[in-house]
C-alpha cells in the first residue's frame, strides 16, 4: 500500500475524476450549539474505484457521503461530479443527479414495505434513463427467486441485497453505501459486499463505502480515513482482496 498525495484535488490533468472536492465544509446549527462536521475536505476519487471511508463516529463520513450524494449541501468549499460543479446547482438538479447517477445503500434497508422485491427495484427502473431489467438486478444479488416477496417476508440480509439491487438497477455511475453491512452478521455481510464488488466489476460503478469495520478496507482500491471533519489519511490499496476472503 502506498499513500496517495494528500492534495489530490489540486491535480488537474489526467482523466476527469468521479468526485473532486476542495475545502468542503459543513456546519450544523449556530452559536453555542454549532457543530462543524466537515472542516475543509479535499478529495479526488477516480472513476471505477471501490473507496472505503473509515473513521470514528462523528468524524464526518456520513456528512461527506450525504453531500456527495446530493442529499445535503455543503456550507462552504467546492465539489464537482465528473467535472460538473455541484455546489451551486438547484434542488431540482440535485434530485435529477440522484435519480440519474447515484445508487444509495443504507444500514437500514429503506425498502418500501408495500412493494415486493421486484417492485422495489422497478420503483427505480421506471424513472431511470438506462436501467437493467429488475430481475437481472435481483439476479446480480442472488435474489431472483425471491422477487415476489414483500420486505416483511425477508431476512435482513435479503432485504439489504434487494436494496443493492434497487441501487444498481439504474446502472449508476456511483454507488454510495453507508454502513451497508452494519446490521448484518458476518456471512450475510460478505454476500452483500460480493454483490457490491460484482457491480463495480460488471458495471464499472464507482463505489464509496462507509464502514466502522476496518476489515472491509481490504477489498477497497482506496481507503480514506476521516477524523474531526478532515481527511486524516488517503491510501491506495495495491492488492484488493475478494470479499469472500474477508471476515469479522
Amino acid at each position, binding site marked *: 500500500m502506498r499513500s496517495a498525495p494528500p492534495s489530490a484535488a489540486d491535480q488537474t490533468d489526467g482523466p476527469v475524476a468521479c468526485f473532486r472536492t476542495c475545502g468542503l465544509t459543513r456546519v450544523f446549527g449556530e452559536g453555542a450549539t454549532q457543530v462543524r462536521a466537515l472542516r475543509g475536505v479535499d478529495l479526488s476519487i477516480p472513476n471505477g474505484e471501490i473507496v472505503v471511508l473509515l473513521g470514528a463516529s462523528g468524524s464526518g463520513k456520513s456528512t461527506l457521503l450525504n453531500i456527495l450524494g446530493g*442529499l445535503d449541501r455543503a456550507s462552504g468549499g467546492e465539489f464537482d461530479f465528473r467535472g460538473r460543479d455541484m455546489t451551486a446547482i438547484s434542488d431540482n438538479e440535485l*434530485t435529477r443527479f440522484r435519480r440519474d447517477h447515484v445508487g444509495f445503500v443504507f444500514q*437500514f434497508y*429503506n425498502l418500501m414495505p408495500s412493494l415486493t422485491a421486484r*417492485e422495489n427495484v422497478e420503483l427505480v427502473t*421506471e*424513472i431511470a434513463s438506462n436501467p437493467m431489467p429488475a430481475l437481472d438486478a435481483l439476479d446480480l444479488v442472488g435474489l431472483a427467486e425471491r422477487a415476489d*416477496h414483500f420486505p*416483511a*417476508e425477508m431476512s435482513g440480509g435479503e432485504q439489504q441485497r434487494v436494496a443493492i439491487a434497487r441501487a444498481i438497477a439504474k446502472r449508476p455511475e456511483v454507488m454510495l453505501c453507508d454502513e451497508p453491512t452494519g446490521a448484518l452478521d458476518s456471512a450475510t455481510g460478505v454476500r452483500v459486499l460480493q454483490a457490491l464488488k460484482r457491480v463495480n466489476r460488471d458495471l464499472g460503478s464507482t463505489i464509496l463505502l462507509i464502514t466502522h469495520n476496518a476489515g472491509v478496507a481490504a477489498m477497497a482500491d482506496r481507503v480514506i480515513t476521516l477524523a474531526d471533519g478532515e481527511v486524516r489519511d488517503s491510501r491506495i490499496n495495491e492488492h484488493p482482496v475478494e470479499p469472500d476472503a474477508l471476515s469479522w
Partner: protein
Amino acid sequence: MTGRARDIAAALPARLDRKMVRDLWAIRLQALAIALVVAAGVAVLVVSAGMLDSLRETRDAYYDRYRFADVWAPVVRAPDSVAEAIHQLDGVAQVEARVRQPVLFDMPGLSAPASGLILSLPETGLPRVNRIHLTEGRRPRAGQREEIVLLDGFARAHGLAIGDRVTATIRGGREEFRVVGFALAPEFVYAIAPGQIVPDDRLYGVAWMGRDALEQAADSAGAFNEAALILQPGARERSVIDALDRLLAPWGAPGAHGREDHISDAFVSSEINQLGTMASLLPPVFLVVAAFLVNVVLTRLIAMERAQIGLLKAFGYHSRDVVWHYTKFALVIGAAGLALGVGGGTWLGRLMAAMYIEYYHFPFLLFDLPASVYAASLGVTLLAVGGGAMLAGLRAARLSPAEAMRPSPPPDYSRALGAALARWKRFDQQSRMILRHTLRWPARSAFTLAGVAISVGLLASSMYFLDATRAMIDAHFYQSNRQDVTVSLVEPRPRAALHAIARLPGVLTAEPVRYAPARLRFAGHEERMALTGAPPGAHLSRLIDSQGRPVTPPPGSIILSRDLAAPLGVSPGDRIEVEITEGNRPVFELSVANVVTTLIGSGAIMDIGDLNRLLGEDAVISGAWLRIDPDQADTLYAELKNAPAIGEVSLQNEAREQFERLMDEGMGASIYIYTLFAGMIAVGVIYNSVRISFSEREHELAVLRVLGFTRGEVAYVLLGEIALLTLIALPAGALMGAGLAWYFSEAMSSDLFRLPYIIRPATFGYSVLVVLIVALSSGLMVRARLNRLDMVAALKSGD
C-alpha cells in the same frame, strides 16, 4: 412548542399530564380539526334540540296560558243559546261563541287591499277560549264600536301607533276604526292568509273588536258563527267533533275541526317536527365521525410512542394508567369541542330564536338550554371521544414492555386485501404503493371514504332544500296558480258578478271559481276539504300532472291531489261519496278521473258547471282568478277595496316575492351553516387522514426523495391515497345526498306542503366542489411539510 405550552405543561403536577399537554401541542392542528367536528355535532344538537325544546315549551305555555282552543266549530249563524248546548256536550270544558268576519283593510301607504279577519271579544271580561296578549294599549271598551285591537305584527308592518285610524270593508260596508291596542294571539302565531304558505304581515291582518259592534257590522245580532272549545282532559276529540257536527248541522256547520287543521298550529307543529328530525339525525353522524377521528389519531400517536409506552410500563405504570393517559388526551379534545359546540350552538340558537320570532309571533321566545340538552351533549361527547380513545388505548395496554421498546417490524403487505388487483401490470410502482396502503388498512380507508361521502351527502342534502323550494315555487306559482289576484266574494253570487269583475280596470282575464266545503268518503275513510269548481280548460289556476301537463276534470268526475287521495285509499277510476257541508248539504257520488301531486296545499277540483248543478243552483261563483295589467294594479286595488261584494283578495305576486324573500333569508342562513358543518367534517376527516398518512410514511417518502423522486412525484404517493378515496367518495356522497334528500322529502313534508324530490346537478356540483376545495387545501398544507422533509434525518432512523 411555544413558551406558553411549556409553562402550562410545567405547571401540571403529574408528569404524564405534562407529556399529554406537550403531545397535544405537537398535534394541535389535528386536535383542533377533531374538536371542530365534535363542536359541529354538539352545536347541531344544541341548536336543534334546544330550539325544539324552547319552541315546544313556549308553545305549550303560551297555548295553555291564553287558552288556545282544541276544537273550532264554524256555523253559518247560530243563536247564542246553542253555545250553552255545546257546553253540555260530553268532554267539553269551555266554549266561546264568537263572530268571525272576513275583512279587507285599506291601509295607508299600501295600494293593495290587505285581507284579514275581525274577531269578536266579549263585551265584558276575558274570552273563555282563545285569549289575546296585549303588547301595547288596551282592549276595546264596552259599547265603543269604533275601537279595535290589531294583530301586533300587522300594526307594526304598517307603522301604526295607538290612536291611529284604520279603514276596512266588512260585508260590503266601509267602516273606520280607531286602534286602541296591539295584541298577539295563540291562534295567530303564524299569521297566514288562507291558501298561502308564508306569512306576510303587510297583506294579512287580524283585528278584534267588541261583540256588539261586530254583530252590527256583520249583521248577526244575537248570533255567533264560530264556537271555539277547550276539551276536558282525556276527552276524545273525534267524538266531540262528531257530536258537534250533529248538534250544529241545522245551523249550517261545514264541520268542526281540531288543532291539526288549524293553519297556524299546523305550521308551528310542522316546524317542531322538522327540528326533531334534525335533532335525531345529524348529531350522531358528527359524533361517530369524531369518535373515528379520535381513534385513528390516537392509534397513530400510540404507534409513534411505542417505545415510550414500553418504558412507562417498564417503570411500573399500570396498563390502566396508560389507557387513562390516552383517554384523557381525547377528553381534552372532547372538552374543547364540547365548549365550542355548546357556546357556538347557544349563539346560533339565539340567532335562530330571533329569526323565528319574526315569523312565529310568540309573546316571548327564549332560546333556553334545558339541563337535558346539556346532559345529552356531555353524554354523547363522552361516548364518542371516550369510546374512540379507549379502543386505541387498549391497544397500548396490550403491548408488553419488552416488545414495545423494540422498533416495530415493517408492516406486512403480503396478505393485504386486493393483492391481486395491486399486482396488475399497468400500475406504476407509486400507484401500487397508494393502492396497497389504502387496502392494507381497509377499515380506516373505508371510514375516510365514508367521512368524505358524508360531507358531500350533507352538503347535497342541505342544498336540496333550495332545489325543492325552487321547484315548489315554480310548480305552485308558475305552473298551477298563474293568476295575479284571487278575489273571493262575501257570499256566492250569480255568474254576472264575474262580468262585473272582468270589467274592473286593469283586469285582463277573469276565470270563475266556485268553492264549497265538502267531505269526501271512500271505504270508511273521510277527508274534509274545500271542493273547487273551475271552468273547463281553466287557464290560470289549474292542477298539473307529473308530466307537467294541466289536467281538466272530465264532466261528472273529480280530480284529487295525492295527499287527499292517499288517506282515502282512492285510485283513478274509483267512485267516491261527496257531501257538501253548506246549503242543502247534498250528497252525491263522483268518479275520480285522476290523482295528481300538488306541492303546496291540497286540491279537489271538478267542473264548475257540474258543481253548480249538484248544488242545485244556477251558474253561481264564489270568486274569480284574475290576470291583471301591472300598470293599472293600483287603480284595480282601489276599486276592490271599495267593492262591497268582495270579501277577500289575495295577491299571488306579493305572495311569491314574500316566499322567495323568506327562503333567501331563512334558508340562506341555514345552508351557510350546514355548509360550514359539513365542511368541518371534510376538514376533520381529510386533514387528519393526510396528516396521519404523512406521519406514517414520512420515512418512506424521504427515501423516495433520496432515490431521486421529485417533490411532485413524492406528493403523488402521499396524496394519491386521499385523492383516490375522495374520488370514490364523491359519487358515493352524491348518492348518499340523494338518499338523505329523499328522506328529508318524506320526513319533512306535511299536510301543508310536500318537498318534491328534485335535485339539480348544480347541487351535486357545489357539494363536490366544497369537498374538493377542502381536500386540496388539506393536501397543500401537508405538501408544505413534504417540502421540508429531512432526507438525512430519515436515513438515520431505521423506522
